[in-house]
């Protein structure tokens, strides 16, 4: 080719590695989904098509309560963390650069950088002390923990959206007699909405998916869907786990597709 620029796709073996990578990523998921429809009790031996395991999972009270708990935690945590992240994003972009801004940025994004297991152990010990003091054993701890680690995931898309927003629009609003609150309500918020929604959905998925922190923080009888499934692994595994996973996968795919469409639509 006349074009002398570097083309990774022309390196020998590129295609092989690419195909292998995709196989490793997607084949297990396809297998998982396929075996959710297995008629037999094994997750390795195919015995025909059936929706039996979906029905089993649907009728399983433990799965139901874990699902509801997961949704409750994810909804609350994503709502609160998105509100906090919106304020944080406004505070770190809608003004001239100030001393210590990078430090604040790092502080907000701490959950992305500290190993999750460290946060999990720390939370377990910290909440353990509080549990002893107050005697409170409820879901509050899980919601609080999820809210905290969801903040950076909500923060990033909101901040990205804000950085692309023309500051002169807010100046124009204030010029046209809008008070600070009116400017926020009528100009900043509507323009920021796609970013906020994207942040909320990302936070929701992250919360729904969490195992490590949940496993360490939860009290007895507070299984979420992922920790319930982890518990099942210790016993004989049936395609019921595949069915639950497939449901979770479906929900995640829907949310991430919506997230993608929302962030892309901004031209």
């Amino acid at each position, binding site marked *: 080719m006349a074009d002398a620029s570097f083309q990774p796709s022309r390196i020998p073996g590129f295609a092989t590695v690419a195909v292998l990578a995709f196989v490793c990523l997607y084949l297990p998921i396809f297998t998982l989904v396929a075996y959710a429809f297995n008629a037999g009790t094994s997750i390795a031996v195919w015995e025909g098509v059936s929706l039996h395991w979906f029905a089993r999972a649907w009728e399983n009270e433990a799965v139901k309560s874990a699902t509801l708990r997961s949704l409750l935690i994810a909804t609350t945590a994503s709502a609160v963390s998105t509100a906090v992240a919106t304020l944080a994003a406004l505070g770190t972009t809608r003004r001239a650069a100030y001393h210590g801004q990078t430090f604040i940025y790092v502080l907000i994004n701490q959950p992305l950088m500290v190993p999750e297991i460290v946060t999990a152990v720390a939370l377990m010990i910290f909440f353990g002390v509080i549990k002893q003091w107050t005697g409170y054993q409820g879901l509050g701890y899980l919601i609080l923990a999820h809210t905290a680690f969801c903040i950076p995931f909500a923060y990033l898309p909101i901040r990205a959206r804000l950085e692309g927003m023309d500051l002169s629009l807010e100046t124009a609003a204030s010029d046209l*007699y809008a008070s600070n609150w009116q400017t926020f309500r009528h100009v900043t918020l509507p323009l920021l909405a796609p970013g906020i929604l994207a942040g909320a959905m990302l936070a929701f998925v992250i919360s729904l998916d969490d195992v490590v922190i949940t496993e360490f923080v939860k009290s007895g009888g507070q299984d979420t869907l992922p920790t319930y499934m982890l518990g099942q692994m210790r016993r004989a595994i049936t395609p019921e786990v595949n069915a639950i996973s497939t449901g979770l996968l479906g929900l995640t795919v829907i949310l991430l597709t919506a997230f993608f469409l929302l962030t892309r639509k901004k031209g």
Partner: protein
Amino acid sequence: MGVSEIAIEARNAVKAFGQGAAAVRALDDVSVQIRKGEFFTLLGPSGCGKTTLLRLIAGFESPTSGQILLDGQDITNLPPNRRPVNTVFQSYALFPHLTVAQNVGFGLQMQGKPKAEVEETARRMLALVRLEAMADRKTSQLSGGQQQRVALARALAPKPKVLLLDEPLSALDLKLRKEMQVELKRLQTETGITFVFVTHDQEEALTMSDRIGVMSAGKIQQIGAPRDIYTRPVNRFVASFIGETNFLPATLQGAAARLGTGDLVELTDPPTRSGTVTLTVRPEQVRLAESGIAATIASWVYFGTDTHVHLALRDGTEVVARLQSNPSGETGLTQGAEVHLRFAPGAVQVLGD
């Protein structure tokens, strides 16, 4: 001039950016009075402080020291939303999530005016800028010239006491710019609102303004009607920034000035001081004549309507004469020929620096 005739006034306005020794004075002790109903232009190169002055009037910046007065009231500390002053932004800054009509009605809506009045005024304003048909479009569906008109209608809708325009025509192509110049002048006459217009385009300033304030290096260099600014520039900056001109070193001698060549030039308005000065004379006021100051023709450039003749005086000073073309377009000039030139009566100005 009575106080009641002044719409907006800057009094010793200083705006410094940065701290301590690194501070830059974007505005350096600027005082200006803009009359009611006037089309006033702040003209200057980029970085001269004209936009900063506009932002102080709008309230987007507060002065480091000095005052801004509106109708004689000190508004220096009022936020932008409490000043009856609206801005047309260089980037237009139209709200992309609102329709054209909603954009135009925004100011009135924020003031809490009834919905019917907001809609009625928006319709009237869109008619004023001839965009009634676009009322329900999104602003992204409009052309640059149409967006410009929406920005104008939006800023005019709340009937501001002063309309500020920050280089509003700079993003438009030449033809559209000419149209909008006429349009702006019409709107200003029809509404009677005081316009403060910022531009770096001297032609725009000359053709549209009642008065011009020429700015450079954070200071106002000269304020006057376009004709005063062009014919009686006070200093070298104003003379060279607006139009083309010749500079001639000279020594004052009573009511005349002696050029480096020894020729005496009569002054209609001689200054009281004496010593060495710089004279300025516009190229179109230089004539070739039978007698006068001796010069050699260096070169010429044909421009159609006129011909620019570059002449060298005996002391080496270069002078450009702009001569109207004759019907055949022939100049009848010869390079290196000895000619004489004269300056039209009253055309020679003594500069202050």
